[in-house]
């Protein structure tokens, strides 16, 4: 895989993982509201 390929993969995965963890954790905090 080329350097650009790795950059694309790492940036994309990190962003999506962060967004998923952030939003789902916040939802769980308000789960029973």
């Amino acid at each position: 895989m080329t350097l650009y390929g790795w950059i694309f993969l790492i940036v994309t995965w990190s962003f999506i993982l962060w967004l998923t963890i952030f939003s789902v954790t916040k939802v769980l905090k308000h789960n029973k509201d």
Partner: protein
Amino acid sequence: MKKRENWGTKIGLILAMAGNALGLGNFLRFPVQAATNGGGSFMLPYFIALLLLGIPMVIIEWAIGRYGGKYGHGSLPGMFDVMWKNKIAKYLGMLGLFSSAAIMIYYTYIESWSLGYSFLSITKSYFGLESFSEMQTFLASYQGISDKYFSSIATAYIFLIITFLANFYILYRGVAKGIEKLALVAMPLLLLFAIAIMIRVITLGTPDPVNHPDWNVMTGFAYIWNPDFSMLGSAKVWLAAAGQIFFTLSIGMGTLAGYASYLKEKDDIALGSLATVSLNEFAEVILGASIAIPIAVAFFGLTTTQEIAAGGAFNLGFVSMPLIFQHLPFGDILGFMWFLLLFFAGITSSVAMAQPVIAFLEEQFNFSKRKATTIIAIITFVCINLVVIFFQFGFLDEMDYWSGTFTLVIIALIEVIVFAWIFGIDKGWEEINKGALVKIPSVYKYIIKYITPLYLIVILVFWTYQDAIPILLLENVPAEQVPYRWMARVLMIVIALALSLMIYYAWNKNKKSTNYNENKEN
């Protein structure tokens, strides 16, 4: 107004919404699209479409849904009617009922293949079939097109019946006890299976280092992620990316709005939409892209995988994957998990498609849940049989294009115009932020009003020119398929007309009863 159901928990709602969005497309369509449209450079138009088209449309559907639900409406005709005081509004909303009802008909059949194949995997029924042509014949035989491996369509039909009954049992149980419970079980299992298979794929390395040293998982990842910047100038890539965002988030069917109608008036929609989108993207970009294509490259090499990808999503999911599982330790279990995860992805979407139609009967005709579910189940069952019988003649493809592709863009465009231009972006923005647990950047107010509709218009114009006209004129369709494709069109027209008549009748009836009550009070 009847008391409406509500979601039991926030996480149940989010998982149901994510299940609604997450379907077969995440695991089969996305890798094919990414791989055939420039790999890593596909991600750039994909994310731009996500930001300018996907996220705004998901937020709009949630907002339309919660607003409509406040007035007792769980489907688009009623929702549009309360947002736009115009006689035509409810008939435009009919398109939402039409597309979800029509898609449900053929989607249930495809979904049942996944369940059937999970059984065929655990019983090793296809083990021993070593070539693509054999595996393609096996699939055709399962679908009743050939009698080489199955003497009749009975096996497929049994799994169809099971899938059909499971769908309608869940719908009969209702929103909190049926759909939410399903999501709470199916979604974690789906993600767990997908993560397990992904780990297995990543750890495969190079299965045959002596004969095929370049057939490995990393070449597969490189195929998807290495950017080909020359393709960024191609309109085809941008349209493919926008199309994928459309399908993956289940935009333009009114199903997200249908689920959102069961929110309470001050429940959050901002964080909810963000969580739905991010879970869907996690399943698509991280899990979906790391399974089918990399494993295919490791076993068949890049050139053959490109041919498989060009052959479409079913070729990848139901032909190449079963071939691969046979060569892996515990391949029967991996195959079982793969097809069961596809089934979970399918069923969490199909119940979402039927729910607005059932809600429509309950709310506009005062039917009980049992009566509404039974009526829709009977009609759906009759129509599914047409799909099964005429499958080989392009009946399903015809329905899929008009109800599952073209209509979706039209509905999405109507939704954004009704919400941002007729209901008004100021009122709309206020609605979006009511009860919000996260702040949506105010730039989205302008994106929703200007950019998203423009984006949709461009897609609609291109798709009409590129696909709709040739498909309408039945260009490149084999002569023997023409009558059956017309039959599919007649069926869709009948569904749309029946729904329009029902809307006309329901609104007249409700108007009369409102007038009667007002006179009585006076």
